């Protein structure tokens, strides 16, 4: 067994903790740092509730060791809003009723961010493919797709207005 000092920047703020090598990134985020917006769903790399952006790319944080993420930057659901202003993706989930129980929502929104960062105008098929690593047990997929379409449109008009 070995313990390691791990420094990870989460939503722009640096956190340094000493952890066991076996500490999973999701436990670092939730238990060491206390950001509990990132959820643990299946614990089997299937559901995507724990999805975060690691250096800009979506990963399942239950399937990465915290030590591997040492020195890297994370974005979690808590980092989406700017102060009291919701991110367009959050606004889309609000406006289009993109959640029922809400358990999968943090992961869904982070996967949507990964997708929209690379494709500002995805087709419905591309949205469904982009979110295919995230499961919604309420099966509310249609509204989730509409939420992402809403967000894509909002983000395009926001960037066009600048």
């Amino acid at each position: 067994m070995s313990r390691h000092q791990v420094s990870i920047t989460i939503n722009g703020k640096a956190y340094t903790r000493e952890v066991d090598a076996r500490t999973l990134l999701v436990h670092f985020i939730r238990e060491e740092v206390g950001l509990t917006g990132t959820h643990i769903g299946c614990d089997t790399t299937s559901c995507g509730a724990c999805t975060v952006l690691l250096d800009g790319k979506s990963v399942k944080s239950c399937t990465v060791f915290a030590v591997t993420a040492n020195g890297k930057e994370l974005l979690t659901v808590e980092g989406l809003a700017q102060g009291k202003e919701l991110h367009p993706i959050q606004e889309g989930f609000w406006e289009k009723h993109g959640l029922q129980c809400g358990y999968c929502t943090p992961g869904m929104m982070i996967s949507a961010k990964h997708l929209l960062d690379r494709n500002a105008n995805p087709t419905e098929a591309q949205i469904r493919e982009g979110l295919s690593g995230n499961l919604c047990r309420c099966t509310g997929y249609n509204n989730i797709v509409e939420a992402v379409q809403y967000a894509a449109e909002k983000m395009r008009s926001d960037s066009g207005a600048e």
Partner: protein
Amino acid sequence: MIPGEFEYHAPSSVQDAVALLAKHRDEAKILAGGQSLIPAMRFRLAAPEILIDLNGIGGLDQLEEQGSELCIGAMTRESALEESDLVQKRYPLLADAAAVIADPVVRNMATVGGNVAHADPANDHPAVMLAYGATVYAEGPKGKRSIAIDDFFLDLFENALEIDEILTELRIPAPTKGSGGAYMKLERKVGDYAISGVAVQLVMDGSTCKDVRIGLTNVSPAPMRAKNAEQELIGKAVDAAAIAAAAKAAAGECDPSADLRGGVDYKRDMTRVLTERALVRAVERSKE
């Protein structure tokens, strides 16, 4: 579920990683993308005492053509294959496979080298690399050596690497005139292993098949080539009858086991269907 305890090393060069592996030998395990290993560790199916993490080593993620080969660094993420114009344009078999491995989030961490080195017949790259006739490059205390892919997969989870060697690179032949390829995978849902999968890479001369290699996914105890199916095609005119004969041969020579994805007969028949479809698509692409 939390993995068992282990000692962690994050070397910054392949040489340092090899030295650690040479020192700790079978107590140590290599961590690449971790998308197979970490789930296995959480279930305590794997409990290595020492982990050697390759994620901090630079330069293992090259993806470029050199001479007549595509060089794929072992730590190349699956998503890099999807985002590569070169792969999308010139390596359709590889591009097909990259889009159906696990799910899009897993593909951001999962690596090509890890997928191959794991030697799991349920993984997609073994069949793909068998079809391409890839070359595996490994580095150990005695330096670098190459291993033909046909000699690489020994058994379930067993590869030809020495205990102190690390897979560093894969190379596949660049396309030539008349070459084409395709990967067909049947899965119950995104993220599941294949019920069956078929990788085809061929070279056509007009309507005659000059060369073909076919790899099969998850229908045998170890990654396998469908050599009988290949023999039905090489040197022959590729018409519907020849394709049907090859597909039937593949169904006959695969060796699936019954599980929650289906029974033996069903998997054999799906292998037949997928072989047929993959051959048709590969021939179409050879004309492009």
